[in-house]
């Protein structure tokens, strides 16, 4: 297992390198450079060159890349062009916010989706199955920002139970912090639950056809025990990969949800950084997101043998 982890970490480096190169090129390909954003239209137009020099943007792109990569390898992620804040600290604090929301949302959607998926499979084509399938499809058919805004209209304004703007970290003030998380998590769960549930239902249907399920039944076990003890581990393995992919992509920040619910997450930071052409910040974020993605994948693969012992690492 340990050897496998080392192998995977080594194998991740080419991916990380490729991501950084692509990001470095793409952000410079996009028109508009940071100097223009900084100068804005009020100040002396002549200062563009001066600012470009100060930011080192006048050097050739490969040169800039080498310098930047050199700094990264020494752990120096550089400073934001926009507000001078250290890139790494900003990313990590914003990632903490995104991570909180994502993990709560994924846990909730898994705790709902897996049992619901298995029940839907168990009662295939009966009313319970139809009800579950149709409601998840309905939830999946609505854009997430629409869900968000409607939640705010109902719980923020009409009922006034939940704060519609602002953010308090649950780590600092748990009770108030939770209030700020309820709506974003609900919106995310409604968006993501469909994928997980469908996978759980499909793999459970497939597993229930296996011989060892009939064997379990022939031992006199109740349907519930057959589902929980025999069907669940085998059905959960494929669902785990889907979960890994969802967590991987969401950890890059759910930009839409963060914008609607004023959460200072990684998704919004990415958009602000890209739209203000904050090169060091964009490059820093995407490198960290790539690392997160690789780590999540590794963890999913390490968890896999727990549910499917045939897989040897």
């Amino acid at each position, binding site marked *: 297992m340990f050897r496998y982890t080392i192998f995977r970490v080594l*194998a*991740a480096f*080419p*991916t990380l390198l*490729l*991501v950084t190169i*692509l*990001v470095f090129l*793409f*952000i410079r*390909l*996009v*028109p508009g450079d940071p100097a223009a954003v900084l100068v804005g239209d009020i100040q002396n137009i002549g200062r563009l060159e001066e600012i470009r020099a100060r930011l080192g943007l006048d050097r050739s792109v490969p040169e800039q890349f080498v310098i930047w990569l050199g700094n990264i390898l020494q752990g120096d992620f550089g400073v934001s062009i926009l507000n001078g804040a250290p890139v790494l600290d900003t990313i990590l604090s914003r990632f903490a916010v995104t991570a909180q929301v994502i993990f709560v949302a994924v846990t909730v959607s898994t705790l709902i989706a897996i049992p619901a998926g298995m029940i839907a499979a168990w009662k*295939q*084509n*009966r*009313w319970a*199955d*139809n009800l579950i*399938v*149709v409601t998840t*499809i*309905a939830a*999946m*058919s*609505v*854009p*997430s*920002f*629409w869900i968000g*805004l409607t939640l705010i*209209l109902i719980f923020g304004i009409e009922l006034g139970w939940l704060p519609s703007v602002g953010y308090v970290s649950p780590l600092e003030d748990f009770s108030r912090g939770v209030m700020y998380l309820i709506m974003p998590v609900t919106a995310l769960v409604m968006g993501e639950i*469909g*994928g997980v549930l*469908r996978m759980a239902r*499909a793999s459970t*249907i*497939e597993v229930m056809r296996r011989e060892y399920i009939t064997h379990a039944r022939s031992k006199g076990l109740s349907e519930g025990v057959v589902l929980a003890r025999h069907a669940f581990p085998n059905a959960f393995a494929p669902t785990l990969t889907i979960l890994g*992919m969802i967590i*991987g*992509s969401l950890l*890059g920040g759910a*930009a*839409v949800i963060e*914008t609607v619910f004023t959460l200072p997450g990684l998704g919004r930071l*990415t*958009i602000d950084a*890209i739209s203000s052409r904050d090169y060091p910040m*964009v490059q820093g974020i*995407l490198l960290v*997101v*790539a690392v997160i*993605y*690789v780590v999540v*994948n590794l963890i999913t693969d390490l968890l896999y043998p727990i549910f499917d012992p045939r897989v040897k690492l």
Partner: protein
Amino acid sequence: MRFPLPRFNVLIGALLIGLTVIAALVGLFAPPANPIAIDYTAFLAPPSPAHPFGTDDFGRDVLSRVLVGAAYSLVSAFGTVAVALLMGGTLGAIAGFFGGWVDRVIGILTDTLMAFPGLLLALALISIIGAGILPMIVTLGVSFSTIYIRVVRSLVLSLREREFVEASRAMGNSETFTIFRHILPNCISSIMVLATSTLAFAVLAESALSFLGLGVQAPNPSWGGMLADGRGLMGQAPWLVIFPGFAIFLALLGINLMGDALRDWLDPWMEGEA
């Protein structure tokens, strides 16, 4: 009461998708009004005989914009799935069939695409190809292709062991012939199931991009764009949000129902039980 979900769902799914396609055709060829014609006098007019779905903040007819929007949203969604299918399918098949270092290289490419934000890709492409529906399709297509690579690769890996593939090789067929003649046709059924679900995600992704200000280029309407633009006016002009929102909901419901039913229907058959 046993209730044959697959057949019932296919019915509703087909109905809804049919409705959307008809709307798109009407929108393209015979819209009730010119979707981009501005009428200063009719700002945010509520639904009326002249404008059954009311008008937007430029006085444009919402009904024709929803109809034309159907065309744009469907084209961008189907375009996205086509790109994802072509790119992901072929790469997945190659990775699955040849294995070895080819598989590793494609694996690295997939991880990179997964970690890469669609937003930055969209911006870069817009600057290269110019604004419009094409960069949207390519961006979403590329980011969705990663799912196709994964699925097709595992499908090909399992099919490669099947004896009819070895029989094809025994007859002296080349590797590429075997892939396209024997392996890919047998992936079609599960790829179709995957396509329907990514179709739904494509429409949602397009609306998210519009929300972030990067959608289909104005003034051409897309559902996601209309929904995003109307979000601030839910109070005074709810019709700006209700009609496109309903259109997206019904279309996606149709696509998802069809996808679900397709999988249940295809599933038993795919195992080739006699």
